[in-house]
């Protein structure tokens, strides 16, 4: 991927790689915008490359580290729940124009995140959203039949637990703090982070068991 990225951006007129055919008008339009922005010196190929590298550098592993810290450091967890935007700065992360709200799963409440209007997602801590998060099916149904949607992810939340859906419509981005799996008392923070999946931080699944 790295090779691919460089060859594209250093030679903006290079044809797309063999494995990536450009088909639709809109795909050509996207390339046209890129080339016009470069020709007009509004954006440089290096900036595009750096922006892609920055996006690639933030993955669900970033969020997993935050969750593992909250699981092992009570004071950090309190800071994270009180003000997520400030607390993730301790990991060098910046929410930009948005704010981070962390919601904690407990034995009584399970949280699920959706954006019915577009694709609001805590990109600063999880990277880019998965396809299903942006899909019509998830956006339409997560608010109306969240338990059925969770079952499609293999997740069954007992009826005795309140399921709370968060529809992110405004300036807040949501991150679920899953419950620490049982039997993980002896694991290190790093070992715990390996149990935290992307989907468990969106709330459609639970962390891996130890």
């Amino acid at each position, binding site marked *: *991927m790295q090779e691919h990225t460089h060859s594209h951006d250093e030679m903006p007129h290079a044809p797309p790689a063999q494995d990536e055919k450009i088909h639709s008008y809109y795909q050509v339009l*996207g390339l*046209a915008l890129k080339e016009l922005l470069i020709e007009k010196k509004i*954006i440089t190929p290096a900036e595009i490359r750096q922006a*892609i590298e920055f996006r690639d550098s933030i993955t669900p592993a970033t969020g997993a580290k935050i969750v593992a810290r909250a699981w092992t450091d009570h004071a950090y967890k309190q800071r994270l729940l009180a003000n997520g935007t400030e607390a993730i700065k301790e990991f060098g992360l910046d929410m930009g124009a948005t704010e981070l709200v962390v919601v904690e799963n407990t034995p009584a409440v399970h949280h699920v995140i959706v954006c*019915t*209007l577009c694709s609001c997602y805590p990109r600063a801590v999880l990277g880019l959203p998965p396809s299903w998060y942006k899909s019509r099916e998830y956006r339409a149904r997560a608010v109306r039949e969240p338990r059925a949607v969770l079952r499609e992810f293999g997740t069954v939340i007992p009826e005795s637990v309140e399921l709370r859906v968060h529809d992110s419509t405004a300036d807040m981005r949501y991150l679920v703090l899953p419950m620490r799996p049982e039997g993980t008392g002896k694991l290190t923070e790093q070992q715990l982070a390996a149990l935290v999946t992307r989907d468990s931080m969106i709330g459609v699944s639970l962390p891996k068991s130890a």
Partner: protein
Amino acid sequence: MRGPHDLGGLPAGPVDTSPHDMTFWEKQIDALNALLSQKGLRRVDENRRYIETLGHDAYNSLSYYERWTAALARQLIDKGVFTQDEVDAKVAEIRARLGGDAA
């Protein structure tokens, strides 16, 4: 009364939970949007408005980043960054370069 983007509660099929790796084209579009926002030439709220006014047919038939591309093109033309004529000429140039690969 309900825009094409306002999906909450509508009937829809099962969620396709399978992973899809982002293509390089998609990553480039994402990067252009991020950079233009940083430079003050693109605003997320305006981008959403342009996407919402694509109409139901376009909204439902275009992929996620195709919608972003359509919205970004309109936003940059409306802001005077370049003209539709310049965009059309560049699209034609790229199609010629791509030959049979392009639509």
